[in-house]
């Protein structure tokens, strides 16, 4: 199961896989809620593997269990006992992943009582770094994150794009090799979003981290990823893994290239099929309700 994931990986993954274990590996991961007959299966039989330094994007219809999957990888939710999560080849028992992965949830979750600078240093403070050292470290990143001059501002004084960058900076400052991003640009307008995507790639190329990025935007998934994984409708599982061989660094013109279009056409069909399923499922449920 796992070898399949590796073979589907990008060039980088294939050449390294023989020497270095995958950075993150999920083997037969399930998450079921409740007990029969009211059992809900949120995530079923997920196998995936991400090589060190890889940028993997995950798309799927809304409510497909993406966030549940993310919470499990972040260590916030234990997977059911029949599966396992491995980090650099090491199995991770329940709770062991907490503090090992830089996790950025969908909402920016900036604390209104902290300045931008002190929001950015939150993870560092939790790790026990002194406030002075943490601030000094964060301050050096402000130009790169386009937030220079806003160190002493409070979150409510910032625009949506800036708040998102603060949240990203907070995640980056929590220096873990694996970063989980849950639809970080979902709430931004199209222009800001495109800008943030290019900016994120830039940062990623310089900092050399492994990224797993959830989105429901196919363009975004292709533009950013070395690999795009498509999740099925609930119960969520990985349906398809597409390697994106588009050259890097990528700029805006990539989006209109024939190669991009071809990949998009393939993925779109796959994703739409799943979206239709969720639609049908909810319609069935509604039908059943009206009948009973």
């Amino acid at each position: 199961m796992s070898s399949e994931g590796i073979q589907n990986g990008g060039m980088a993954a294939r050449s390294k896989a023989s020497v270095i274990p995958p950075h993150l590996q999920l083997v037969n991961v399930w998450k079921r809620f409740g007990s029969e007959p009211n059992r809900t299966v949120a995530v079923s039989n997920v196998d995936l593997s991400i090589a060190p330094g890889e940028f993997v994007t995950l798309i799927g219809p809304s409510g497909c269990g993406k966030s549940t999957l993310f919470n499990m990888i972040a260590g916030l939710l234990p997977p059911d006992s029949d599966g396992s999560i491995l980090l650099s080849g090491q199995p991770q028992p329940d709770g062991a992943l907490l503090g090992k992965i830089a996790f950025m949830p969908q909402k920016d979750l900036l604390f209104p009582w902290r300045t931008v600078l002190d929001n950015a240093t939150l993870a560092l403070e939790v790790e026990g770094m002194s406030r002075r050292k943490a601030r000094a470290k964060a301050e050096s990143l402000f130009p790169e994150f386009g937030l220079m001059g806003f160190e002493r501002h409070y979150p409510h004084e910032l625009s949506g794009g800036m708040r998102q960058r603060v949240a990203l900076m907070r995640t980056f400052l929590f220096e873990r090799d694996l970063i989980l991003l849950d639809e970080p640009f979902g709430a931004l307008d199209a222009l800001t979003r495109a800008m943030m995507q290019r900016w994120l790639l830039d940062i990623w190329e310089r900092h050399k981290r492994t990224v797993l990025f959830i989105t429901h935007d196919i363009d975004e998934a292709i533009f950013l990823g070395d690999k795009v994984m498509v999740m099925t409708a609930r119960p969520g599982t990985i349906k398809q893994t597409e390697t994106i061989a588009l050259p890097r660094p990528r700029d805006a013109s990539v989006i209109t290239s024939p190669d991009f279009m071809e990949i998009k056409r393939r993925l779109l069909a796959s994703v739409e099929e799943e979206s239709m399923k969720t639609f049908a499922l909810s319609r069935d449920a509604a039908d059943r309700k009206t009948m009973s």
Partner: protein
Amino acid sequence: MAIRLNGLRTALPVGLALAGLLLAWEAAVRLFGVPAFVLPGPSGILVTIAEKSNILSAGLLVTLTEVAGGFAIGTFIGVALAIVLVLVPPLELMAIPLVIAINSVPSVAFVPLVLLWFGLGMASKIALAAFAVAIVVLLNTLQGLKRPESEAINLLRSFGASRFGILFRLRLPAAMPFLVTGLRVGLARSTIVVIVAEMMGGYGGLGQVIYQATAMMDSLTVWAGVVVASMASLGLYGLLVALDRKLVWWR
């Protein structure tokens, strides 16, 4: 500059209304020849405050000490209990119905019992004020501590934060606006219960001054006591507003 102007803009109408009220009061008392034991005029009250400044300031000192002492102890107990309850959820389930039941009884109802237990001196008043403050601070702070959404808690957990880390970095700051509300309500309640307790049994304090003046049909001194008491609680309230800005600085 803008702030000072704004302050003036709100203070001016209030000041004018107050001056108008006092003038009308004084005029009515003089015009209709209302006897002082029914309703004295503001000027009479002011003169009495000056004449009786010894008794009044001694009483004020006692009352303020009791309120401040009880307020401090009650706030500490309320916040500490709220923290314990939020860290041990089963305890919360047991304690909260009880606390709400106690809270629905006005604390004044406990005055006779507390006088019996703690005597007629300052201890009984401090205990009553602490009790009145603790209950309302506990309920408000607990509500605030439970305010943060699970996503924010999970974010801190993903950074490896312990329960105490989450308490100090997230729950306590989030609870500050609620604590401030609790303090305001608690202050009003503790002032009331202290003055009432002093009236029902005590050796000093503004309540006792008012009580004794009433017994001697000295309505001017009663009024003087009431005015000093309200000025004092206004002053305390002002202090609390300043504290509010310190505790909830980000608004």
